[in-house]
């Protein structure tokens, strides 16, 4: 199968959906001629024109609100938010307006929009350009949240998001834009709420989101050499969350580590670990362990930044402990 980058995959998904549905349009800062600073959207303005690929002023709350209104009245906007950190600026329009409109109207108004943004540290971009803030929006009922872990998922999830009748937030890992993966030429969609078992294993379950899927896979490869077979699962969407697949795996392996690049405390790993504990408690040999980013603002200095996020080595180390029974009675 041909391989394309995550960036190309997003671009293709959007282009295909814009061809299919004339109500789909894009807006955001420098999305047209510049094709975004990451060049993800290059070429779209040439095909669809400046009417459907709209450069906005630097007014995130404003253009997010505009997208909500357009979505409520018959368009299907895709909002490009240049850095995930800027989500703080649009929380009101996203969480008080977009997320609640369908419910508050008793089901009469829909807000079919996609907010695509990014996440991921270790780019030396410091505290306001490196955050992974997907936990925040996952807490708000009415929003769906997708976290592609490769070009394949990026394309399939984006197409599903655009066709969904709800506000969907997609977090792309900005460090993975140039990563290639096999992506079929034929059209495909990835349904929301279906986790993907990336690797089967019987000794421990590694549940990982976005960029952390690679980390988990690397850890699994190392562990396998040591005779520990890890099952790696990518939930793909964290709202809705495919609890069933996760629980089934943990019931089989009796051990789990949840790995995510958001801050650990009050984050995504907490929710997933809680659900496993609640629903697979009597099958667990060891506590479910969480590995999120450190609870610190992302430091600029390379010497510090790199230690804030989970790495394959640290996952391996923790998995070994869990499998060796070392944790027993530690807790």
């Amino acid at each position, binding site marked *: 199968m041909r391989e394309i980058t995550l960036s190309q995959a997003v671009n293709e998904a959007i282009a295909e959906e814009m061809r299919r549905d004339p109500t789909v349009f894009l807006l955001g800062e420098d999305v047209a001629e510049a094709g975004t600073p990451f060049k993800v959207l290059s070429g779209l303005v040439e095909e669809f024109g400046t009417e459907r690929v709209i450069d906005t002023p630097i007014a995130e709350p404003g253009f997010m609100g505009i997208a909500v209104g357009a979505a409520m009245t018959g368009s299907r906007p895709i909002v490009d938010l240049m850095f995930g950190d800027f989500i703080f600026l649009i929380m009101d329009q996203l969480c008080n307006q977009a997320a609640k409109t369908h419910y508050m109207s*008793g089901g*009469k108004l829909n807000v079919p929009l996609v907010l695509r943004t990014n996440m991921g540290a270790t780019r030396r971009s410091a505290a306001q350009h490196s955050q992974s803030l997907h936990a925040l929006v996952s807490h708000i009922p009415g929003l769906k949240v997708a976290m592609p872990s490769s070009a394949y998922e990026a394309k399939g999830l984006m197409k599903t998001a655009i066709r969904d009748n*709800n506000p969907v937030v997609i977090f792309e890992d900005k460090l993975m834009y140039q990563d290639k993966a096999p992506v079929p030429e034929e059209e495909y969609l990835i349904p929301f709420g279906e986790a993907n078992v990336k690797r089967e294993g019987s000794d421990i379950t590694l549940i990982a989101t976005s960029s952390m899927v690679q980390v988990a896979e690397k850890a699994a490869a190392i562990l396998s050499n040591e005779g520990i077979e890890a099952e790696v699962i990518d939930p793909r969407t964290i709202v809705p969350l495919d609890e069933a697949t996760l629980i089934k795996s943990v019931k089989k392996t009796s051990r789990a580590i949840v790995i995510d690049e958001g801050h650990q405390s009050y984050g995504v790993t907490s929710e997933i670990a809680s659900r496993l504990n609640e629903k697979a408690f009597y099958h667990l040999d060891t506590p479910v362990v969480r590995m999120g980013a450190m609870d610190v603002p992302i430091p600029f200095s390379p010497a510090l930044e790199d230690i804030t996020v989970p790495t394959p080595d640290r996952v391996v180390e923790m998995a070994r402990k869990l499998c060796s029974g070392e944790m027993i009675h530690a807790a």
Partner: protein
Amino acid sequence: MAKAKTNTEDYLRMYRQMMRIRTFEDNANQLYLSAKMPGLTHMYSGEEAVAVGICEALTDDDRITSTHRGHGHCVAKGANFKEMFCELLGKEEGYCRGKGGSMHIADQSHGNLGANAIVGGSMGIATGSALRAKLLGKDDVTVCFFGDGATAQGLLYEVMNMAALWNLPVIYACENNGYSEYTKTEEIAAGSITARAEAFGIEAFKVDGQDVLAVNELTQKLVARCRKGEGPFFIELETYRYHGHHVGDINREYYRSKDEEKDWKENRDPIIRFRSYLVAEGIATEDEIEAMNAEIEKDATEAVAYAEAAKYPDVSEVDMHVYAD
């Protein structure tokens, strides 16, 4: 497109709509005072000429966004009393199945995209509706209602900038009733409100919000120009709210005098003024007007009774409509 409102029928409808708003609010206030309404609500009484003057220049295809003080906009845009009272009481037959209540009442069928409990929260929505019209080649116009207090929200300037850059068919209608909650407008708004719009290259107008014909005439012109691609526009409407900030705001003297209230009610009431005009111009007799009033009152009484007796949504609805299919 809206016809020029120069004939008897149109005038009478404007009167009727203003009277319907006043009557709706009187009944809503009564429901609150008799502890039959859950929560609080914000009365539109006194500002009727604004909503009616503007909405009578619109068609059902045109959209509006409304505010926390939204009953007037809702009635003016064509809503029925029954579904409105049901909504205010949290009943299943309400416009939003009781899930929204007063602060989120919406009436999709007449183009009312909803009240909003975030001050200024709908400015983006209105502008987005106008962008959608432009992108999809429709000639509908969107009116964004908001108060003087809401002009302090930065969102307004963000969306006016984009509306101006992209020539969107949106009209920003600032209902300046002199107060934002318990604070006078001059204490929270520096400079000039219309100049702020003009600074973005938006034509701005100031109009007497107690004169329904003046409001309607201006709006008709601007709606027509919006349809031709000459938007956006900004209107500041001078008006006054008769009640407190909300129904529970009874003792108001610490922030405004009874004399001031009396003056507006007695000398500038939009309904009294327009009624005298209709009679003086021979468009309606006192008797005809009284008959109309009585009919409206009856409609309201029946709707209230209906809503009181109506059933609440079933508890199983609580997690319905979180997501659309």
